[in-house]
């Protein structure tokens, strides 16, 4: 059966009409400047506050985006138990394509206006999409952007994800103190913005601590066979191997290293901070040091509650992406209640002024729109993360 012009033309017209109709629900291009009574816990807003999340649910970053989505869902459940304010969360997929991210942002800014946008998942996408929000005056809260140059985009851009430059120096310092490092081999994937900026932070921190880097080995973020590199690293006989990589690389790397007989400590960055590390690398993960923004073993009330709620809803443990997403929603709630308003400008002002908010990440404040909370250096012991001392 060959498609005839008339079939295609009718299908196309139908599709365009539907798209047009769907977009016409709102006629103004700014979020309804909703303001209510009261403040803080007593704030009451009549209509749900629209929040948009631009996440990578498919494509290369899908595992992070979906993890973030899970964290957001848990947050919504928790927030629903508080009275006065409800949220209408729309999650959209940018398919790990910055060009689609632009379309999603455009939708959240004008067609289905939201009060604040969470995301996008990848820093490189953020550099493309956030300037649009900045121009149009819509607040954006990054929940996983850790590269440099994000908040610099403008005063409407915030993030709750600690950049590598905030986490790594203390990771190296602690590791040196605890393990007595003199020379190391550094490995990192040089085709990913996150891991590359992590490497740069490692490089600077190692230099500051006076630790010698005997070799720097690069791999691709899609690599899973590290035997050639590890064999070379082994020959250099370092005191530790420092790795800036994503979790997909971390697990095979750690496993293969132990297999090849490399017994020295392995030190990783934020990318290693996932329960998958212990679950899938098993024995090999023992003793791995991970510098992270989120202390999963923290026994604070907020963290314990978060862990419990996440396990109950999704089965399995959350990772840092979920934790930062959850926290992001809490921060949005705090900002909305502070001014008791869903107005974009009000949220921008109040978000920036938040300080000492209790979250699973710790006691959280914004300074110049950057996150301020203590980072943690963890070590894997008996199949779980514990704080390194």
């Amino acid at each position, binding site marked *: *059966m*060959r*498609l*005839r*012009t008339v079939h*295609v*033309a009718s299908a196309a017209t139908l*599709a*365009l009409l*539907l*798209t*047009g*109709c*769907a*977009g*016409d629900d709102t006629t103004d*291009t700014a979020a309804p400047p909703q303001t209510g009574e009261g403040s803080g816990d007593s704030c009451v807003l009549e209509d749900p506050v629209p929040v948009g999340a631009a996440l990578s*649910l*498919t494509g290369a970053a899908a595992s992070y985006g979906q993890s973030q989505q899970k964290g957001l869902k848990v947050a919504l459940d928790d927030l629903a138990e508080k009275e006065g304010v409800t949220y209408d969360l729309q*999650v*959209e*997929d940018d*398919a790990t394509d*910055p*060009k*689609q991210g*632009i*379309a999603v*942002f*455009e*939708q959240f800014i*004008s*067609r289905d206006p939201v009060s604040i946008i969470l995301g996008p998942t990848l*820093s*490189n996408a953020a*550099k*493309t999409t956030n*300037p*649009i929000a900045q121009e149009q005056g819509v607040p954006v809260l990054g929940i996983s952007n850790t*590269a*440099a*140059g994000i908040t610099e985009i403008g005063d409407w851009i915030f993030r709750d994800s600690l950049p590598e430059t905030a986490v790594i120096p203390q990771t190296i310092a602690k590791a040196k103190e605890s393990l007595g490092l003199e020379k190391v081999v550094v490995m990192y994937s*040089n*085709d*990913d*913005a996150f*891991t*590359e*900026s992590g490497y740069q932070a490692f490089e600077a921190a190692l230099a500051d601590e006076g630790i010698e880097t005997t070799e720097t080995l690069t791999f691709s973020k899609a690599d899973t066979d590290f035997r050639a590199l590890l064999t070379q690293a082994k020959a250099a006989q370092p005191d530790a191997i420092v790795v800036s990589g994503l979790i997909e690389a971390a697990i095979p790397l750690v496993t293969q290293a132990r297999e090849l007989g490399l017994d020295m400590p392995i030190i990783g960055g934020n990318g290693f901070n996932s329960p998958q590390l212990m679950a899938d690398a098993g024995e090999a993960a023992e003793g791995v040091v991970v510098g992270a923004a989120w202390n999963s073993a923290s026994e604070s009330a907020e963290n314990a509650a978060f862990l419990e709620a996440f396990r109950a809803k999704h089965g399995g443990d959350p990772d840092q992406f979920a934790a930062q997403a959850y926290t992001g929603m809490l921060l949005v709630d705090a900002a909305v209640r502070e001014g008791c308003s869903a107005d974009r400008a009000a949220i921008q002002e109040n978000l920036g002024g938040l300080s000492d908010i209790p979250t699973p990440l710790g006691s959280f404040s914004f300074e110049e729109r950057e996150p301020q909370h203590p980072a943690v250096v963890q070590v894997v012991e008996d199949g779980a993360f514990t704080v390194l001392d």
Partner: protein
Amino acid sequence: MLSDYSATLTLIALTAIFAYSFYAVLLAGQLSLGQAGLASLAGFSATIVVPDDPIAGLSPLVVGIPVGMAVGALVAFLLGLPVMRLRGVFLAIATLGFGEMVRIVLINAEWTGGAQGTTLPKLVTPGIAWGALLLVAYWFWRLGGSRLGRALAALREDELAARAMGVDVSRYRMTAFVTSGAVAGLYGVLIAYFSRFITPDDFGFSAAVDGLVTAVVGGSLMFLGPLLGSAFLTSVPEVQRALGVEAGWIRPFLSSALLLVVILFLPGGLSSLIPRWRSPKVDPDVSPPELAPLPARGSPVLSLTGLGKAYGGLHAVRDVDLELRSGEVLGLIGPNGAGKTTLVNLISGLAAPTSGSGTVLGRELGPIGRGHLFAKAGVSRTFQHSKLFDRLTVLENALVGAHVVSRPTLLRRLLWLPSARRDEQRALAQAGAQLTRVGLGDRAGVPAGELAYGDRRRLEIARALAGHPTLLILDEPAAGMNHVEARELSTLIRSLADDGITVLLIEHNVRMVLETCTRILVLNFGEVIAAGDPATIAKDPVVIEAYLGSDGPADTRV
């Protein structure tokens, strides 16, 4: 409401430009996938030269765009030199490999920012994007009806036949390649200054594949194809969003399924849905161009000395001496495998001799790849197995034959100069006249692939005649014809000879050969075993033994 979609609309324009860079090479039948790498290089080059501030009131892109396009074109040229001789899938893989190498080199380079990329100001408005798109589309629209455009289409359909009609295959392939590079460069600069960000990863394997898919879905046979493909594919996620399809695995599944449906049921892509509104037609008031007179009867046309062609140990043609003069009709006969077609390939420049020498219409026989020069010199031919341009119409096939006697029209078409139209009309008249001559005048608009067998043979002859040849080579033109048709063909050949065209005829229909030719050459096992006028040959015992059959000359049909 349009401003709500401004980014989407701009992306449609930019994606279409990228698809045009694929269209440029697909037109010529080349599956090149290096455009993403070219775009990447162009975009990054632009970042080096584009100033921060407007120049004399003009957007800084005024510097960036020409630089980007020049880089794209130059690198395409350099890449093309080694890969040009590759065909089909080999070319695709080589160019993909090129794209990957570019990506890796740029990621490892410091000045590009590596994986963290470079942040850029937004300089591309929807107006600029659509303006650029319209210019690119305009170019390809005017290309469609020009001599170059037709030559590229011919090249795509059948490279060897195109070469035999005088199309300089290497040069035209390179032209398509370089054009593709320039357009890809334009895209690279525009997308960088639209996204405000450029990183080598955005121009990897999946970007190349997306560009190819866009071009093929839109259709690579008609200039609106890339635009349609881009509009369609960019809208699919939007439509899915609007229809409420949940974000997640369903969307890529539906997109892929839709792509499959389009490819399977719409051969020729989306643009095949647009009816061709205007096929070129012959204007009856325009007469064919004034063409150079054919050489005087008796002047030398070709001279071969000891010519030979060996494939490894197999001598297809061995030690052939031949003199041919204008006005002769030479018949070439012999059993199958005797080397007739090989000899003719040598004469028309489509194969290179391994021994001996020869001159055809003033040109020395030499290395292959110069077949088009012989066509320019006045050699034209048909093929043993019809090599028509199936997806072109009958008239267009003949027009390609007129390639060597028509003038390039693209640049003048861009400016809508009337002289281009006049040249086109004259070429059409020339082509139309040949069609009438062979009796196909009323089938001008029919796609060649739909012709009946006999008509295909006649179209080949018309196409060969359209180039106003001095030497016409016919390779088994009467194959499959009954004796009425064969007789008509014989009459046609004699009329061509009367008009001054020298004809070299390969045929198995011996009666026809004896009736039509002034001289006959008999080949067996690559060697000439007899030569002379028809009466002598018919009685020659060596010939009878080898070919005609020992029952004697009465049995002259094979």
